[in-house]
């Protein structure tokens, strides 16, 4: 099983979630993060003082998937998130040793979905 962490543009979130659903990956966890990357944000201006804003708003999507779903997950995220501009984000994949569904106590592959 794999644990996927994707950092994407906030405005692509809906698309990414939709693409994941299409691939049968419904369960995800989402949160708000700030990212420092290559991207320069829209320079915000406060009383004529430009803030080039090194920390930009991003959305982090986490999804635990069984190994066979990994390629589908990656390409779904790519499809939903990609605009071709700097700031599109990254996907990180880690090995997931164990999963446990709290409600039923099920463990492993079966508990992931």
């Amino acid at each position, binding site marked *: 099983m794999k644990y996927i962490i994707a950092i994407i543009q906030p*405005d692509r979130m*809906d698309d990414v979630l939709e693409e994941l659903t299409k691939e049968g990956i419904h369960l995800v966890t989402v949160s708000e993060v700030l990212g420092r990357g290559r991207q320069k944000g829209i320079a*915000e201006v406060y009383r004529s003082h430009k803030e080039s804003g090194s920390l930009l*708003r991003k959305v982090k999507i986490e999804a635990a998937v069984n190994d066979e779903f990994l390629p589908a997950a990656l390409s779904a995220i790519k499809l939903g998130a990609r605009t071709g501009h700097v700031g599109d984000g990254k996907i990180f994949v880690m090995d997931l040793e164990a999963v446990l569904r709290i409600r039923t106590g099920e463990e492993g592959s079966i508990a992931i979905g």
Partner: protein
Amino acid sequence: MPKIKLLLLLGFLVSSVFAQSPADSGISTLVSTPSVFASSVPIVVATPVATLSPAKMDTGDTAWILVATALVFLMTVPGLALFYGGLVRKKNILSVLMQCLTLVFVLSLLWVIFGYSLSFGPTIHGLIGSSAWFGLTSVSMTLPHFDAATGLSYAPTIPHGLFMMFQMMFAIITPALIIGAFAERMRFGAFLLFSVLWSFAVYYPVAHWIWGIGGFLGSLNPSGTGAVDFAGGIVVHITAGVSALATALFMGKRKGYPDKMSPPHNLPFAVIGGGLLWFGWFGFNAGSALGANGLAVTAMVSTHIAGATAGLTWAGLDWIINRRPTMLGAITGAVGGLATVTPAAGFINIWGAIAIGFLAGLIPFLFVMLIKPRLKLDDSLDAWGVHGVGGIIGSIAVGIFASPLINGRTGLIFGDTSLFTSQLKAVSIVGLYSLAITYGLLKLVNVVSPLRVSDHEERVGLDLTQHKESAYTVLD
């Protein structure tokens, strides 16, 4: 709205002859017998007194309208701004606040330079005011208005400049109401151009028709039997509400509407805004009596009771139909009730206020609940659903519930049909006019400066793309 208390002139003459009547209570005296004197029907004095004595200025009336003016200001910023701003998504709140504030800037200047004269200046065939008062020429800051030709005055006991200022606040909030229809998707520049053109093409003429001396639809013309609009059901809520409908239709839906819209990002802001609107509405409606008199009290009571009834009605329907009374429903109902009673506030008794409040809760609820989803109309914050529908209901309802004992005009249930007919006529004409002109203006503006932001800008949000700012920080 402008009540005419013309007999005051005679009263003053008499009082100075008998050298005993305290003039300041003259106003109250007149108001205290409302069916005759404090009517909104102009009583055309045959031989107008040539000079209006400044002795007629009343400090109490002036004090109240100074405050009422400030209250109506507060309704736009931060009242309406927060009410609307809390309901949009985090990424668009500043755009709404900025639209409201910019209207304050621009329309205030337009008003003193052009708008007041076009709306309230000497009439040109009952259609529009002349340019005689451009730049406030002839608008005294110290003496009341007095129209020598007709013997009428917009407000005989307060400085003319104060009446102008009070009306300015109405001219600001009206286009601000429309923001609710196109929130989260209009380009800032196009918004500004549209609002300015709209003021000239819709607000100033309609204000003149209904409230201007000689306006062809109102009661301040020789017929004296036209439509009434106590504090702006037709001039404010119908013009804005119908134009909101046109705008929502023209602009199309927001991306993701209706299934993927995020809920209001900050409901407490909407409640603060709603509370400030209610507070300001006392100035809006009771201030439209243009004095601290019995008519102001009547309007205050009607306003409050209709707001309460409508809020309760919406909350109750929510409770029954959606299983829970919601905060947003309650505040929406209340604002709808306040909007709906606006044209009627100075003509009805508390039972009329309760009836209008009930209708103002019921009909917009049904519209937003049943009809809107079918139309797939994206009137983002229900500017049409609440202000348009409410304005129409209220402006017709005054022709039904007006009690002759309150302010000299008689509604259907008291046996007179003429007021009802006048109201229907005014509502239809103004409604259709607003719809047509607004649609035309949108087409025009769209050519000069595209109305809608790009798909990318809509996704990223208007705050960043139109104003280069974010409302909130994430960490610090």
